[in-house]
């Protein structure tokens, strides 16, 4: 057992770090530091920079543009990216539908879709959740009925993040209404420009409009856009959700945020002294740091175990990553709220700030903090709520 990085891994980290330092546009970085959203244009720009370097989809098989890095190197890469901080590549493409396509798709689908995912020429979104389904995903109702060379899709998806930018959506649809819940589901790729698709934004409590409802009204989808076998979609979805759970710990994001907390607490004065100098506050931050370090080590242990697991199966221990990762993300936004104090109150949308000449209300770093606090409540809900994760651990690991 040796938990230190090897010389080779350390050299790799330096290489990645210095590439990011040199290649990441300052404006993109600054936006992230300030807690603001990355725009579509910024993400495309950044993805192309990574692609030119050959690093857009490092975890993919080499034949599809992957790098062949070890899991540890992939981890280092992602860590460095979150701490640059650089925007994460669009997960719906590179982490979700991409791996489904190269694992279960046919050759035509691979050559048609994978290159355009890697370069973000196609912006993908996810059509899994429905208003009635929630944690009970398999209860979905959107129907796809075979009609010649097409499926005709009717129904509604929700919580579709960034659908407003999307060229494509990957959907779970019910193709056999008579089969047992999980058995009649298929995995369809749908062009967002197809007639009959309507996108309606849902305003979230942070003021954002990044999630949407997507309505399907007699949408005709060519059968060639079916991934794998009809009625086997649930398997592909489970595979996809499993991949999602590993990345969801967001250790790098939380680390970056703790640095930010310390930086801001050094600017903030409470009762005449700097907040960062108050032992109570320092200890509160340290307590979160401890939990985060433990999570990082747990993440590494799960990663190390991955290598030995059967391909495509999921370590149920990765549910720990989801639970603790989301709790820690939430704890960091609570600390930010502690730091900012009363100037969390003004509501200033990004658009409003961009459009005006006057200075911000309060410190210029304050306006994104309450929205981040509100928004981060979602991380214990999405991707399989923390209650579902606990059910998984209870059943799969504890045998209860």
């Amino acid at each position, binding site marked *: 057992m040796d938990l230190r990085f090897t010389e080779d891994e350390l050299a790799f980290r330096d290489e990645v770090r210095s590439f990011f330092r040199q290649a990441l546009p300052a404006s993109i970085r600054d936006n992230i530091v300030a807690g603001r959203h990355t725009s579509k244009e910024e993400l495309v720009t950044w993805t192309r920079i990574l692609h030119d370097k050959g690093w857009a989809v490092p975890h993919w098989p080499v034949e599809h543009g992957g790098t062949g890095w070890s899991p540890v190197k992939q981890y280092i890469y992602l860590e460095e990216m979150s701490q640059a901080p650089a925007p994460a590549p669009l997960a719906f493409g590179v982490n979700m539908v991409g791996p489904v396509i190269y694992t279960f798709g046919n050759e035509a689908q691979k050559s048609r879709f994978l290159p355009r995912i890697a370069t973000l020429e196609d912006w993908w979104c996810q059509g899994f*959740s429905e208003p*009635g389904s*929630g*944690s*009970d995903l398999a*209860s979905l109702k959107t129907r796809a009925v075979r009609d010649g060379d097409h499926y005709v899709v009717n129904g509604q998806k*929700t*919580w579709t993040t960034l659908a407003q930018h999307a060229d494509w959506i990957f959907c779970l649809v019910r193709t056999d209404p008579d089969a047992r819940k999980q058995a009649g589901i298929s995995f369809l790729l749908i062009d967002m420009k197809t007639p009959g698709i309507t996108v309606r934004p*849902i*305003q*979230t*409590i942070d003021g954002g409009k990044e*999630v949407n409802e997507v309505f399907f009204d007699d949408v005709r989808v060519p059968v060639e856009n079916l991934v794998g076998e009809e009625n086997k979609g649930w398997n592909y979805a489970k595979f996809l959700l499993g991949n999602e759970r590993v990345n969801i710990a967001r250790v790098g994001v939380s680390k970056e945020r703790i640095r930010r907390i310390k930086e801001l607490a050094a600017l*903030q*004065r*409470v*009762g*005449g002294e700097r907040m960062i100098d108050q032992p*109570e506050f320092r200890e509160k931050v340290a307590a979160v740091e401890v939990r985060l370090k433990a999570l990082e080590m747990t993440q590494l242990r799960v990663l190390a175990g991955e290598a030995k697991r059967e391909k495509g199966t999921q370590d149920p221990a990765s549910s720990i990553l989801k639970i603790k990762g989301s709790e820690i993300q*939430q704890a960091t936004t*609570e600390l930010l*709220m*502690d730091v900012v*104090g*009363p*100037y*969390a*109150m*003004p*509501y*200033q949308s990004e658009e409003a700030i961009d459009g005006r000449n*006057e200075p911000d*209300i*309060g410190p210029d770093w304050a306006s994104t903090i*309450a*929205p981040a*606090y*509100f*928004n981060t*409540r*979602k991380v*214990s*809900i*999405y991707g399989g*709520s*923390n*209650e579902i994760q*606990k059910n998984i651990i209870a059943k799969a690991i504890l045998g209860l």
Partner: protein
Amino acid sequence: MDFDLSEEQTMLKDSVERLLKDQYGFEARSKHGTGEAGYSDKMWNQYAELGLLALPFAEEDGGIGGGATETMIVMEAFGGALILEPFFASIILAGGVLRHAGNADQKAALIPAMAEGSLKMAFACAEPQGRYDLYDVETTATKDGDGWVINGKKALVLHGDSADKLIVSARTAGNARDEDGISLFIIDADAEGVTRNGYPTQDGLRAAEITLQSVKVGPDALIGSEGEAWPVISRVADEAIAALCAEAVGCFEKMHELTLEYLKTRSQFGTTIGSFQALQHRAVDMFVELEQSRSMTMYASMLATGDDAVERARAVSAAKAQIGESAKVIGREAVQLHGGVGMTMEYAIGHYFKRTTMLDILFGDANHHLKRLAQLDGLIREDS
């Protein structure tokens, strides 16, 4: 010891709750918020008609002479409906200053107008550098003949953008963080030298940053004695905190109710999610927090009007710490148990979550008040 409401109090409670039920549902509230002022003048007039705007003022000043319990009843109901109108800013805060420190002329000039709804005031007591310390006053008032010239910046003035008049704290002596040397002045909101930068707050209400540049006021603008405003400010703040606690309890109650409703109707895995024991226990945690908060709000309401400033401070700080902590627990559980819909503006629960988060912040968050309580040796002492 008696926890019952009097007949009049019960009537007050029923009438305000009925008004809000009829005219302040979730849909109606969205409409009330669309005007420029960010709230409904129509509702404001109805509050006036119901006597709510006169409630805390003494009868001899044109008020109704309600006490802490009456304020608690009204604020709790307002919390339940998430009202947008400046009741807290104008009646509780600015009105509180008038009640405690206004002279006869000032009371006669202002209170009847406030009570009938034609005059709104705001209390500009905080400053950008001061965080939660209201004695951190850098705004100055310099003697100028009979009157004063005021210069400075006031922060987060609740409903300061739509107020007709402002009560401003300014330093007439001493150093920035001294408790001595602070004075209070009434100024017209559109007086020369007053710049108001109004904005919405996270919870859909309004506030303003206010710059005062050589604002001239006459001798009659001074409220109370020169340089001796701190006891007034601190007393008004303590009463205000008790009122905020009551508002929070109104919110918590509604959050708990909405969550229970959701648990009982939302179906997953072939059953209502309220049948899952783990979720039941978390709904119980919410309920326990709600009841503990209610208890502390009663306690703070009772003591916030007392004359012993230290006892008062201990009680309201304890209550505010409890409310802040409960706001975290109840907000977290309410959103989590609602799942995705709890994250949207289209369901009420998220609005309550945002308001209670702001209620934690207003007049000092749980950390601030726990620290204050600890500095005052806590609630349980050798002599208590």
